């Protein structure tokens, strides 16, 4: 059975054609004619840039998250950059390549379950939360993080800042990923000892 009509291995590899990446290795296979799974590893020339392979599932037909219906979906299963490769614009550059290559291959939507700092990083890269309720949960979690972590601010200052936050987009970056302290995502993992997953999507077509 061939699933290469969904997206070719060459196109998958082309997504990772960015200056920061020196070498790419794509291993892809067909679960069926309507489902292709790819594992991608890449290095900066010296080290692997993720702790383990990036996993992608490409579905010919899958329920959409943007509205009720079925469409061609790129499911991003796992993507965790190693710490030394974060904050270098890699996720943004890959996201831009994904958009153009997925559009070329007529995908309707990219879906992912965000974890750790991804829950806020993907939002900045144009992804939306599948459920508004999930965003509200994140805002509630952030309020605890903010109350606990920024001890240099007094209660009145904190209340003033919190009163302006209605969505994740309203939170200034310095209160999500302060330098020298736990980021919001890291704090959640440490506190909860689990990684909450938030369903997100980005429309392509």
């Amino acid at each position: 059975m061939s699933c290469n009509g969904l997206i070719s291995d060459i196109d998958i590899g082309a997504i990772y054609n960015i200056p920061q990446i020196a070498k790419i290795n794509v291993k892809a296979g067909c679960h069926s004619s309507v489902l292709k799974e790819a594992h991608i590893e890449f290095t900066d020339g010296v080290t692997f840039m993720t702790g383990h392979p990036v996993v992608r599932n490409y579905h010919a037909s899958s329920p959409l998250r943007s509205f009720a219906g079925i469409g061609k979906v790129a499911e991003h299963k796992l993507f965790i950059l190693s710490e030394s490769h974060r904050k270098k614009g890699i996720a943004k550059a890959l996201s831009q390549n994904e958009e153009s290559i997925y559009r070329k291959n007529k995908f309707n939507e990219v879906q992912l379950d965000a974890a750790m700092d991804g829950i806020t990083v993907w939002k900045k890269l144009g992804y939306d939360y599948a459920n508004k309720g999930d965003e509200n949960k994140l805002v509630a979690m952030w309020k605890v993080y903010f109350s606990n972590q920024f001890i240099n601010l007094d209660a009145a200052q904190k209340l003033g800042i919190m009163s302006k936050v209605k969505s994740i987009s309203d939170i200034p970056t310095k209160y999500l990923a302060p330098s020298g302290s736990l980021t919001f995502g890291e704090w959640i993992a440490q506190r909860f000892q689990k990684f909450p997953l938030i369903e997100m999507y980005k429309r392509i077509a």
Partner: protein
Amino acid sequence: MKQTQQRYDLRMYMDMNSESGTERLLVFRAIVIDHETFYYIKVPNFGIDESYKQLFLDIIKGDFRLKYYDLEDIGTVNPESKEYSITASSVIDRIEESKEIMSSLFGIDITSTSMAVNDMISFRFDGHDLNLKYGLNPKSAGSIFNIANNLIGSITNNVDTFGEVYQMEPIAASTTVPYVSEHNDPEALEIIKKAIADINGECIDASFANRQHDPYSELYKRFIKQLKEIRTISEIETFEVIINGKAHSIDDFKKLRRIDAQLYNQHISGNGIVHHHERYLKSKPNIYVVVLDVDGKECRLHLDNQHSRFEQMLRVLQENDEKRISFSGYKEGESVVAADMVASFISLS
């Protein structure tokens, strides 16, 4: 006194840390009857916060879901996601079940206290277009809730015997706004019935209304004054105050126009220091206004230029600027007197 069904006072608290220490803040509050019947109560600093409201709704409807990876699975290539959900069937059990995850992940301490409340009072606004079943235009809805809340305020600002008072969801197919309270005060409710009866009979009890240091007198006066606002709802045909299941209605709203005249129609006398002249009122060009300081409070003397002693009263006021004068006249408002006599003050001491 009619007892209503059991309710739960659900509160969410969060700890806020700062250099000065830890402060426990109330971030959300709701009164819950069941998973479909509840109402929110605004809390200081947070109002009705959308993020906590979401958690509350998810908990009581049993819709709370959270996908997660376990820490140890994150190193595997294709980790399996798991889901946390609330499985209890009753609201109170769902609240109990959610406490641990609310604490660990959201830093929220949930308390839920059972409470019994009483039917306190309801206000019904009846008219052709005032019907919740067919939808209420936003302007009318706003007026109705505003007036209802101000009427309650006129009660609770003067007597605290009802304890905490909550507005319930309006009853559908009418515009009845019901209120429940922690305690009941039969005397206060009798005063409200008296107020309605006195308005209908056009015999407002001015001497009762103007008693000093009497909270029930103040309640009577404030409630009556607040009732004037009903005239701002153009579609209204009947207004009812429902106490212990019985309706007390006002159906002739023209009587509300004459409230001030009846409420203050007392002849009084006093003395005060002439503060300044405001000259003629724009709305009533025959009325000349002089402001006095009467024991530290403002009193506005209205002099009608049609009055036979107008010239004499005005001359005394002009000759006694910043001096004490005596006056008498009819009260027209809380601090307004229609003067019929003004004279230089003669101290007997």
